[in-house]
């Protein structure tokens, strides 16, 4: 440091800039590498919707003209844990056993079948749907969502899916 004070402002200034820029750059390197790792590490994990077929009911039980409420148990993989979730669906024997998700396409409450009015009604914001699932009134922007089904060994099976809320188009949530 002996001749530092002797040096003029010009070279001293650039030396100071260098003195501070290099270490700050290196410190930025430390933060950047940790931050990059942090971003990848914390990035939300989209759980792949399991394409498992879930038993709904034996075909013989699905009779009549009215929607039948059924409970299905779907497996969910969330990070380090698997868990099972139950969902309500309605089977429409009158519509070739189409299966509707009970989740209201408005904000995601669960609709229930009203035997007196012969309508699905959502308890949250009073959307109404006809017995075939089509929208009648209320804030929902589309009808109830059908789920993929198939017949296997005399049983009706379904693949559980969730859809985006509040859209006119039906968009599978991923």
């Amino acid at each position, binding site marked *: 440091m002996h001749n530092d004070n002797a040096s003029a402002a010009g070279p001293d200034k650039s030396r100071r800039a260098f003195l501070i820029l290099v*270490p700050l750059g290196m410190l930025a390197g430390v933060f950047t590498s940790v931050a990059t790792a942090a971003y990848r590490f914390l990035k939300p994990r989209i759980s792949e919707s399991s394409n498992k077929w879930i038993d709904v009911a034996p075909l013989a039980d699905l009779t009549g003209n009215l929607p039948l409420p059924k409970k299905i148990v779907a497996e969910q*993989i969330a990070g*380090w844990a698997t868990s099972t979730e139950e969902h309500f669906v309605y089977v429409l024997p009158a519509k070739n056993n189409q299966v509707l998700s009970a989740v209201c396409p408005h904000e995601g409450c669960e609709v229930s079948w009203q035997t007196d009015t012969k309508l699905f009604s959502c308890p949250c914001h009073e959307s109404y749907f006809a017995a075939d699932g089509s929208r009648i009134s209320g804030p929902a922007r589309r009808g109830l969502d059908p789920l993929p089904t198939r017949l296997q060994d005399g049983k009706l099976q379904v693949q559980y899916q969730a859809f985006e809320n509040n859209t006119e188009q039906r968009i599978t949530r991923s």
Partner: protein
Amino acid sequence: MNATETSTAVSEAANPLVDLTVKSPGDRGDLFENGWGAWLQTTGGIVGILLLVQFLTGVLLAFYYVPSVDHAHTTVSFIEKVLPAGSWIRSLHHHVSHWLPVFLFLHIVRLFRRSAYNTATVHWIASVIVLALVMAAAATGYSLPWDARAFFSTRVAEGILSGLPLLGRTARLWALGGNEISTLTLSRFFALHLLVTPFLILIVVAWRFSGLNLSLVAAGPNVNPIATGRVCLQNLSRQLVAGSLVFAVLAIYSMKYPASLGPAVTTMTPDYLPRPGAQFLWLYQSLKYVHGSLGSVVAVVFPGVVVLALTLLPWLNLAALQKFSKQPQRLIGGTILTVCALLIVTMTSVSYLSDRRDPRVRQQLARQAADEEAFRKEPFVPTPLKLDNRNPALATTPASSQGGPPMAYTKFCAMCHGEHGEGARQGALRFPPLLGVSAKPRRTVDDIVGLLNDPKAYGLEPPMRSFATKLTDQEKREIAEWVVTLKK
């Protein structure tokens, strides 16, 4: 040295808090010299950056870790095997925990050389306490992954505490949160590791830096602020560069060498040889030479005395000692630091060497390393979360009503013998199925109850252990009655 610098030095010497700029008599040349020597003074910056890295990586790991015995190992495996950058972050946290005490020790030695205990008391005390806290954080951190190494780390902590004279029992109970190592123990170590020690470290570090800016102002009007500022800037730059370089080396090292993670503790074989983390090897080796209660004293009291004596060093300028030495503080501190350095280096080397020399130990350790490697290569298996019991349609079948296993079986036995007695394979270990076990000799209901109480009497070997105290008699009978119904 020109006029400005002289005046700086003089006024700084008057203010002991300006430890960055203090020149105490007798250590001329130790401060702000140019060239390579100056780089030896960057231990503070290195410690700062490493502490920062520990905080950052620790916080990141906490985003996924779950402190309960049934999920801890799964979540750590998830971090290691599934999450992007998870292995690197954990490895960095692990390796920095080994090097942080080393650099802290060097930092303390450097402070000692310039008599900082007198000239920068706050800095001195803070560094000693941070070293103690960093060791405490490491001691609690080793329990968290809940593999065999973690389990023994907890076991040894338990043993050391319980061997303490007078308060051994109390200390053990308080550390474990009960009379056995359980999920409560893990919660405690978790809270100590993630909340208590980092919080205390932050407080001490804040305390160490609190006087700094003020004291620069307080240094007086004689100080040429530009000159002082440049000296500080130069020093700060060097500290940052050194810290960043050490980080870079450890970051690259961590990419190549992941932190160890063995199979879950439930799969541990009886011949497992536990070895502590590198920063505790000296203690581990020392305990081989001291037996019984004395071991606990050595493990707790010795480090305690060292930390206490170094903390109190600023006040140890005792007149009584001045007949031995003109500077009793130098004598005391120098002795302590030398003894510690010698003890740690010797014991750590002896520990490494003795593990190398004994062929049986070497083979077993190699086997364990191979097990860890094999476990690392296995794909990650998610844990099934138990369903909510309030939901009767989906709840697990209650005890014995529909031929399902009793609750106690699911809790204690299913881990190894399978949910329905089908047995299990965990790594190299195979657990026998219980199906058709009643066809074997000495396996009636009464025999099985007896076997649960005393497996050895029935010719069973570890890892099958006694459940005499873990299960009630009612539960043992329920399990036995259910097990005999199992058909092949």
